[in-house]
């Protein structure tokens, strides 16, 4: 079973040289730490920055320089700043190659719910609806099972949707799964020590298993 860092490391393997990547809050943010050093990857922060760098050293925080999670950050050489309208313009125009975000639920046809739980205080969708509606390639980092022990990979989402037919791949503590254009969670890899049977048990939506499913390799 993967911990959060394991999920982040596995997702980092999906990143290719030259990619522009938008990382959501939570586990996706951790992915930045595991991008191979020999790759040129540019992180987009939807509040208006390309080329986001690591957190600043203590005492070097700049209140004018934050990421979409409102955290103080730095800029790398070659950064560009732009306004929110252009930021979502480039997102809508599919210039961002990969979007990684968390989810409460994902359905077997790629719908995603990650912004609202009925009965709880609603904080808002922020940029998530823009990102999922526009991105060409969306990977979701999430737990396979919620705290009540129920699967979060469902035939249909039960929570209010953030977007439809958009998620391409899911990495959980148990598995890597592709969502097929025709529908269904296609099992690609098992987490270390996890059996296909355990993944079956944890997946409420249509699970597609073809041939041997390799165990994932993480450095």
């Amino acid at each position, binding site marked *: 079973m993967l911990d959060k860092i394991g999920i982040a490391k596995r997702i980092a393997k999906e990143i290719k040289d030259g990619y522009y990547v938008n990382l959501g809050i939570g586990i996706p943010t951790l992915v930045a730490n595991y991008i191979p050093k020999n790759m040129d990857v540019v992180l987009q*922060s*939807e*509040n*208006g*920055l390309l080329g986001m760098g*690591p*957190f*600043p*050293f*203590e*005492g*070097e*925080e*700049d*209140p*004018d*320089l*934050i*990421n979409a*999670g*409102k*955290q*103080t*950050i730095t*800029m790398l050489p070659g950064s560009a*700043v*732009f*306004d*929110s*309208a252009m*930021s*979502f*313009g480039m*997102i*809508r125009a599919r210039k961002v190659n990969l979007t990684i975000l968390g989810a409460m639920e994902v359905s077997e046809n790629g*719908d995603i719910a990650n912004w609202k739980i009925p009965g709880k*205080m*609603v*904080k*808002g*969708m*922020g*940029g*998530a*609806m*823009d990102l999922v*509606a*526009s991105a060409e390639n969306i990977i979701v980092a999430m737990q396979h099972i919620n705290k009540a022990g129920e699967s979060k990979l469902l035939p249909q989402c039960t929570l*209010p*949707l*953030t*977007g*439809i*037919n958009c998620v391409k791949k899911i990495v959980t503590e148990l598995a890597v799964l592709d969502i097929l254009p025709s529908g269904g969670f296609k099992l690609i890899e098992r987490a270390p020590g996890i059996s296909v049977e355990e993944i079956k048990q944890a997946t409420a939506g249509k699970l597609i298993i073809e041939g041997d499913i390799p165990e994932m390799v993480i450095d």
Partner: protein
Amino acid sequence: MNKVFNNADDAISDVHNGAMLLLGGFGLCGLPENCIAALVKKGVKDLTCVSNNAGVDDFGIGLMLKQHQVKKMIASYVGENAEFERQLLSGELEVELIPQGTLATRCMAAGYGMPAIFTPAGIGTEVAIGKEIRNFNGKDYLMEMAFDADFAIVKAWKGDTMGNLIYRATARNFNPAMAMAGKITVAEVEELVEPGELDPDHIHTPGIYVHRIFQGVNYEKRIEQRTVRKFED
């Protein structure tokens, strides 16, 4: 043509009860702090505020919420504010949550004289309810309307007396799109300079969009999430 005002009180003196305001900033970054303080002092009420966030309890738009000055809040994310939550749950405050890109683009549309824009954000969700959906090249889009706001209130780093504005780093965020979108646009700047001191190629918001400008004072620039790394990292 005199666009220069002495201070925030003068620059927002005619913001009336019931006005619709666009307020720049993302979280607490790039906030028009002086104007917000002046609006609180003035006590103007029943405002409709469009801003990406609603501030925190004791800073930003949170200060206006505490005084019950806001009737309706249009934002994309409002998570950091207990008083906001209380007013929302008690029904004192009306809230419309819209996607962040839609918020930015509805501002830009106003500034670019486009009455409506098309975006896929919200298709298949509750955001789409009651809105026109249109298919282009096999993909569905929502038609979203340009904002029609009485005032846009923005913060820039530098400005000149003709209203030209330059922002700094990610304090830019919603400020340029909102600056273009106000029937009256009020800009507060950290440094107000004479015409000719800003390089024309560096100006982010041309002065034609800015009706009033003043040099702000005592910027607090509060940090919402102070994240750092240690030197040994």
